[in-house]
């Protein structure tokens, strides 16, 4: 490292410049940034292990409880059981990745180097958004499907479950004659493969949308801890605050919050909350939140001093 002599500037000449620096180069650059830091891999690994691991545990727990008491077979939403951890914890973990995609540039001051190399900020922001959305979506879809299959495998043989390939019929109600008496079931619920597929994909999309909300809050707040706190506030604390409001009208408010979609998207046994819209309109609400926050983030990213 002790080269004190004058550096001989013998660099090969560059190919002649054509066109101008634009989105394609920015996309390549942002992908390099994302794949070249360890936090990306740690976060994705944590997302996968937590989501799939808890799906397996939940599957075993269901199988065990049915083994102990057959009455527990009634109205088991096996799909939701496999996706719940991915939805509840996964959205938090991927929110960290989303926030970091922007805030790590500010915490390390890399943003100044990035914007010196590529001063067209709209392009930089768009490239970040596209690369992050693509990665988050792929990771979410894979995690969602794997969590489902692992969760189902864990509860196989228990008499309940869900399948992507055929309809599954489970009992609706259980009546037990005395504490240890025989169990009889009445009514059935038919879970179609289409419903299951909708839940798996819908949950992955919802988790991606939450990741985008985190990304946008990262652009607005420019501080990792601040952005993650804001996501937790929006997705977890706000619903609790609203939950203490009078039952007569709180649902009219709750359906406008980004977390509400989670209450309907993961459900496959037809017990949707009557106060909320159906799955896709409710997901639309979350998407609108993401879109508005991203627009604000993009505006501030362009307008503020870096």
């Amino acid at each position, binding site marked *: 490292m002790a080269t004190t002599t004058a*550096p001989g500037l013998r660099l090969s000449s560059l190919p002649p410049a054509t066109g101008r620096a634009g989105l394609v180069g920015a996309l390549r650059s942002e992908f390099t940034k994302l794949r*070249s830091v360890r936090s990306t891999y740690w976060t994705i690994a944590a997302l996968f292990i937590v989501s799939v691991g808890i799906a397996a545990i939940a599957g075993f727990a269901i199988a065990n409880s049915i083994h102990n008491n057959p009455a527990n077979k009634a109205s088991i939403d096996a799909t939701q059981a496999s996706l719940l951890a991915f939805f509840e914890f996964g959205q938090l973990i991927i929110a960290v990745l989303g926030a970091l995609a922007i805030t790590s540039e500010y915490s390390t001051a890399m943003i*100044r180097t990035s914007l*010196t190399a590529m001063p067209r900020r709209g392009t930089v922001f768009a490239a970040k958004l596209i690369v992050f959305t693509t990665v988050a979506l792929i990771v979410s879809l894979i995690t969602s499907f794997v969590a489902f299959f692992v969760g189902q495998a864990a509860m196989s043989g228990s008499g309940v479950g869900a399948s992507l390939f055929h309809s599954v019929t489970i009992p609706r109600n259980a009546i037990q004659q005395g504490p240890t008496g025989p169990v009889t079931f009445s009514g059935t619920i038919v879970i179609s493969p289409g419903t299951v597929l909708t839940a798996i994909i819908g949950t992955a999309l919802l988790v991606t949308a939450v990741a985008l909300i985190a990304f946008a809050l990262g652009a607005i707040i420019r501080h990792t801890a601040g952005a993650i706190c804001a996501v937790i506030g929006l997705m977890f604390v706000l619903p609790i605050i609203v939950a203490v409001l009078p039952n007569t009208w709180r649902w009219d408010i709750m359906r406008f919050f980004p977390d509400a979609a989670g209450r309907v998207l993961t459900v496959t046994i037809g017990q949707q909350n009557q106060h909320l819209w159906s799955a896709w309109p409710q997901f639309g609400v979350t998407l609108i939140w993401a879109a508005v926050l991203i627009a604000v983030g993009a505006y501030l990213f362009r307008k503020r001093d870096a």
Partner: protein
Amino acid sequence: MIEVRGLTKRYGTKVAVNDLTFGIEPGKVTGFLGPNGAGKTTTMRLILGLDYADAGSVSVDGKPYRELAYPMREVGALLDAKAVHGGRSAYNHLLCLAQTNNLPKSRVGEVLELVGLSEVARKRSKGFSLGMSQRLGIAGTLLGDPQVLMFDEPVNGLDPEGILWIRNLMKALAAEGRTVFVSSHLMAEMEHTADSLIVIGKGKLIADCTMSEFIARSSGAAVRVRTPSPDQLVLAIAAKGGTATADGDGTLLVRGMTLDTVGDIAFENEIRLHELSIMRASLEEAFMELTADSVEYHAGIPGAAPGNVPGAPANIGSGV
């Protein structure tokens, strides 16, 4: 090449850059001087579009920086060597910069070789010393083979070896006909490298001239004479149109004539001399004199009021 016109930037109520106008000419090293807090970094950030000016404009080759087709091919700027993601390897850091300007991948290896970081290319930059970080930053500025290079306080905190390396690099870059715009709060640093100077204080332009003009302009340029008969010499010098002032201990400071002339006058008048030397204000003093009124925070050093620093024999040009 770089034109700054009426540039003004306020942070809250504080004016960081105040109606600054100057141009940076191609093909030479221009030193950008000012005390700490004078607005040098802010000016550089404004040139690069990192901050937005409240008034005025900046153009690089006639265009705002953000409209350059390939910014890295025209300007290589290093404002802060630590402005990198420490978790990323040196190679990947440079790669993600090169990709934004569609520069070939092979370029990354070349600039790493040039700055002597090839061996640590795959190491995360978190563990780099300041000197190594500085080299990494400079490697980044050279990726696009730009004609204009901008460095903000590049030798700050470096060891003597690192300082020498940077100094030689700047000379090598200028020797290739590139424009180098380098800021410093140390005049001594500029003495050895800069052809031109832009001096600012409290965000305002104080001087925009060549290095030799700057030296000539400084009030301290004088001939120092020590003689047992000062009164006689004062008269003789006055007769030839010079001015001599007593500097204590029989020492005179002569202004308005060269060393040779003063020697000749003494010889012609048979005045005994014990000392005859050139006393040129070092650049540091000239600089301090110029910026005395604009230093942001004065340290209260007794007997050393800014702008009134006792002269010392010049040692210009002996530093390298």
